[in-house]
């Protein structure tokens, strides 16, 4: 017992219901972050049994403990370094063999395991039968039937976890799936290592020539040599490499168990999933269905109802709330500096972002709907061919689609990608999917300079974003993101009826992140931007924009924009404010042109070049913050910002100068 907090590791395949189980167990006590140094999500939380607190760590969904993907490495390292007291292995009952493949590996770690057999209701519906008692007797660990989505079996699960922790007689054991000769070889190596925690695991890995474990034994060349001898013996004997031998052994053993455990329905009715997929993946219907669902999602998120709510919220904050605060400040005798800071800086700045929250929540709701129902994997399937040409996989389409709404959730959505390289590349490119905040800028400039061809101009900008993203994707994946392309193996889970609870949980998880960001980064950014626009160079309040600090900054920076056609202080200042929030470009331009008009400060060609710059250059600070959080590295974040701004500069340069050449002809 003792006072030390017991640690529980939650492990399982992707799509096994692990996240749902984790949410059920830990509720609001969750904390989501990143595993240090990598782009993999880390989740921790707590639950109680009989007033005793347990810490639960949700490890990434994995198919095995091999050290080939970041997720597997992170999971394995956690289990070995942190030595949790017990593992909960969640098994998708509709997928026994592949799930048990991981289980055999978990049991070799020398940590106690409790099995949570999830989705038994789906098994029942299919008419299949699983002999859980037989399985439990064979594995010699408790197996608890649960339904994570329905919330059943959780009490029993917690009880079993508690009991196994107290049970002295149950010691960690493995299922020994290997042929006699292999098992003997492992035992021999283990003898050489000496019995200790993870000695069996180490011995097995040394035999397997596992790169990570080999490193740990660099100081013991005799052990390494011995393992090598045994390995070569086995490989010669079976005419196959050791990796294959072990994997095959595992699956063969599991196959046998499952044959005795699972009784399939003799007359399986065509599953609902198959019926639905006949339509969704039909050669002719697939694309229209796909486009329709995207259209539906965007109409809901950016359509009339949501816009109405946004306008209402905007008025509530910028008019009514602001008035209240203003009255309060005046009554309290606040200085005009404070009033300006609070009203024009904080409320205006944070308020302009808070207004986006309903829109994002709707977007997240639909994404949760597509994901929870199982449709998302079909959509990724369809997009894979196209995305593979730029070095990504079909899964990357989710961040890209979301990016048309807002870059922040798009960057966060990159978490679902399989490899670190994919995640990074997607985060680099996602902001090129022109977000909703840039739209007002396009509208303003297009109206001022290209009145008759407004729509065509705006459309060309969006199209340019997509095309350049594609080109840059190809270039980057051949250079900086060159790497071993992992095979695109994506499971296609059965379609499931999403639960309201699940949908709202997933929607809220994502929204929470954005809201926190608005609260912190945007707050700071709003204060800074207000200070820069309201103070002159001797730090006095000024109402003359051209005297403010930011105007001087703008004048200084404007040199860079001369080759792009808009090397003037007004567009420069607008672009600087656009770093804080893209819509600021509109308000800044309006304020700065004062008595003149927006349409008078540049030539039409320069204006188009300006639009292109706005399209590509660094997204807002909230997006930069999300980038930093997801990439988990300042270096990479700076790299992304430089890449995006560099692309903006180059594209603007090309457009402006080629345009001038063309006009001279």
């Amino acid at each position, binding site marked *: 017992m003792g006072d030390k907090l017991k640690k529980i590791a939650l492990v399982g395949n992707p799509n096994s219901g692990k996240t749902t189980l984790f949410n059920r167990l830990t509720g609001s006590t969750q904390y989501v972050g990143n595993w240090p140094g990598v782009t993999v999500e880390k989740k921790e939380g707590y639950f109680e049994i009989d007033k005793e607190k347990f810490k639960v760590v949700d490890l990434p969904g994995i198919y095995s403990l091999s050290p080939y993907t970041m997720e597997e490495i992170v999971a394995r390292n956690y289990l070995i370094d942190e030595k949790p007291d017990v593992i909960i292995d969640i098994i998708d009952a509709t997928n026994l*063999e592949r799930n048990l493949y991981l289980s055999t590996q978990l049991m070799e770690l020398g940590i106690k395991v409790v099995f949570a057999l999830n989705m038994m209701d789906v098994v029942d519906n299919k008419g299949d039968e699983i002999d859980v008692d037989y399985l439990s007797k064979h594995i010699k660990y408790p197996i608890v039937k649960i339904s994570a989505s329905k919330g059943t079996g959780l009490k029993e699960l917690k009880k079993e976890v508690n009991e196994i922790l107290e049970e002295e007689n149950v010691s960690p054991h493995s299922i020994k799936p290997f042929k006699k000769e292999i098992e003997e070889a492992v035992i021999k190596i283990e003898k050489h290592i000496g019995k200790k925690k993870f000695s069996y695991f180490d011995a097995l890995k040394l035999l397997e020539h596992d790169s990570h474990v080999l490193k740990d034994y660099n100081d013991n060349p005799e052990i390494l040599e011995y393992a090598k001898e045994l390995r070569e013996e086995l490989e010669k004997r079976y005419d196959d490499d050791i990796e294959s031998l072990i994997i095959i052994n595992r699956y063969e053993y599991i196959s046998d168990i499952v044959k005795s455990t699972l009784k399939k329905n003799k007359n399986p009715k065509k599953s609902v999933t198959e019926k639905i997929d006949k339509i969704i*993946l039909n050669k002719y219907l697939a694309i229209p269905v796909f486009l329709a669902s995207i259209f539906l999602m965007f109409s809901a998120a950016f359509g009339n109802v949501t816009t109405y709510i946004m306008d209402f919220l905007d008025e509530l904050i910028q008019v009514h709330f602001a008035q209240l605060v203003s009255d309060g400040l005046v009554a309290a005798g606040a200085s005009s500096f404070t009033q300006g800071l609070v009203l024009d800086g904080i409320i205006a700045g944070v308020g302009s972002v808070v207004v986006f929250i309903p829109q994002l929540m709707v977007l997240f709701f639909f994404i949760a709907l597509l994901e929870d129902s199982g449709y998302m994997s079909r959509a990724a399937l369809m997009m*894979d061919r196209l995305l*593979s040409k730029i070095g990504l996989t079909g899964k990357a389409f989710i961040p890209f689609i979301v990016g048309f709404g807002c870059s922040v959730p798009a960057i966060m959505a990159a978490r679902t990608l399989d490899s670190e390289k994919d995640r990074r590349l997607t985060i680099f490119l996602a902001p090129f999917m022109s977000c909703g905040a840039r739209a007002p800028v396009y509208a303003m400039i297009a109206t001022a300079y290209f009145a008759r061809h407004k729509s065509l101009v705006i459309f060309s900008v969006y199209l340019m974003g997509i095309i350049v993203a594609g080109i840059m994707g190809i270039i980057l994946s051949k250079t900086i993101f060159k790497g071993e392309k992992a*095979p695109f193996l994506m499971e*296609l889970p059965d379609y499931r009826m999403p639960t309201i609870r699940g949908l709202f949980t997933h929607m809220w998880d994502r929204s929470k992140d954005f809201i926190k960001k608005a609260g912190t980064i945007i707050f700071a950014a709003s204060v800074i931007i207000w200070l820069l626009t309201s103070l002159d160079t001797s730090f006095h309040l000024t109402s003359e924009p051209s005297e403010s600090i930011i105007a001087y900054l703008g004048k200084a920076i404007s040199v860079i924009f001369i080759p792009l056609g808009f090397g003037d202080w007004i567009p420069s200042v607008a672009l600087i404010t656009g770093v804080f929030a893209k819509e600021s470009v509109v308000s800044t331009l309006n304020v700065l042109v004062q008595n003149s008009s927006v349409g008078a400060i540049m030539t039409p060609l320069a204006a188009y070049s300006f639009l292109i710059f706005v399209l590509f250059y660094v997204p807002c600070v909230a997006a930069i913050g999300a980038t930093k959080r997801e990439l988990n590295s300042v270096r990479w974040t700076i790299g992304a910002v430089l890449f995006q701004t560099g692309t903006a500069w180059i594209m603007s340069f090309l457009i402006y100068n080629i345009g001038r050449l063309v006009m001279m002809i």
Partner: protein
Amino acid sequence: MRRGRGAGRHCSNRRLRPGSKGRVCGYRGRGPFRRRLMDMGFTPGTEFTVKKEAPFGDPLIVNVRGYDVSVRRKDIERIMHK
């Protein structure tokens, strides 16, 4: 080029189309690709069925060990089958 156990005259990587069945009998090349495929259940002797192809012809939806997984042609062509 390792063929693994059970390799015979018919072990090849013929083009697969919807409806075709195969039994894994080897792989082309080593490395993480093969490891991944084996982890997912494509071990020698295992039967798999190509259920569908995606609307653009790639990737394929393959059923193996009772579940469906999407695999790109280029990757499944690494698997030799009878």
